[in-house]
């Protein structure tokens, strides 16, 4: 299992103009076990452990919500678009099927 589950990287464009549609790129460390693999040593199925719910809040308002299944790659990469029309925090929350919640907030300051 990789170290440091729940480490997050969020990448924004260097400069953001007001009203511009910007791409936000995110990476999170997570094994995304499918529940279909067997452990080679113990011959037992590895239980499913994956992120199934992603919510994106911009200034307290839910702007995007995603449903994921087991078929999203390990260490999921996701990018989405956002209209930067106000100075507000961008909060992204990942939830997995074992109750883990990982979140990170970045400030968006359009010029």
């Amino acid at each position: 299992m990789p170290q440091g589950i729940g480490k997050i990287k969020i990448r924004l464009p260097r400069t953001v103009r007001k009203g511009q549609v910007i791409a936000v790129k995110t990476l999170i460390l997570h094994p995304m076990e499918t529940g279909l693999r067997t452990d080679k040593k113990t011959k037992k199925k590895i239980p499913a452990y994956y992120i199934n719910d992603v919510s994106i809040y911009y200034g307290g308002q839910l702007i995007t919500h995603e449903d994921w299944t087991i078929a999203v790659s390990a260490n999921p990469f996701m990018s989405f678009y956002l209209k930067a029309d106000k100075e507000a925090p961008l909060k992204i929350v990942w939830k997995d099927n074992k109750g883990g919640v990982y979140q990170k907030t970045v400030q968006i300051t359009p010029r």
Partner: protein
Amino acid sequence: MKKNDFSHARREFIKKTGVASAALLSLSALSSVIPMGNGKAGKGDWLGPRAAEAAPTAPSTGAIKDKLRATFGDRKIEMSHVTMKTPIIAENGAVVPVSISSDLPMEPGNYVKKIYIFVDANYNPFIASMDLTPASGKAAFSLRIKMRKTSQVRAIVETNKGKLYGMTKTVKVTIGGCGG
């Protein structure tokens, strides 16, 4: 010189076996055209025509069809307004980058409500969906997905008025390729 001898012997051998197998082949070829015996191919008649019994089963596309019907009902999916970028070949089916974008407007009252990704050959064809609001500005997102084997990837976009647009692309998964 030795080599030549060997090859000569080999040639002779193959010639002979070739003739023998040719005889066999011709027999069986004949038998498949002209029914032998009483003219009816019985159950245990191995020389009888076999076209009917060994019909190859087509890969079932039932799962994806059921899934699409369950999610969208009988609504028609129009193949336009959506572009999808995927690699042609993925050496590892566990990491296949897919990016979907649509040129549909994102204004209040007229926007893309949801984007879906499906992969036909996966046990669960549904991969991910994304609910959007006009605050997104652009109907696009990208994700890295897992694929069990070579199959089609479908991107389907639903607008707030209930219209469906889509695009499909085939990705070849070549696990067990040359890279060590």
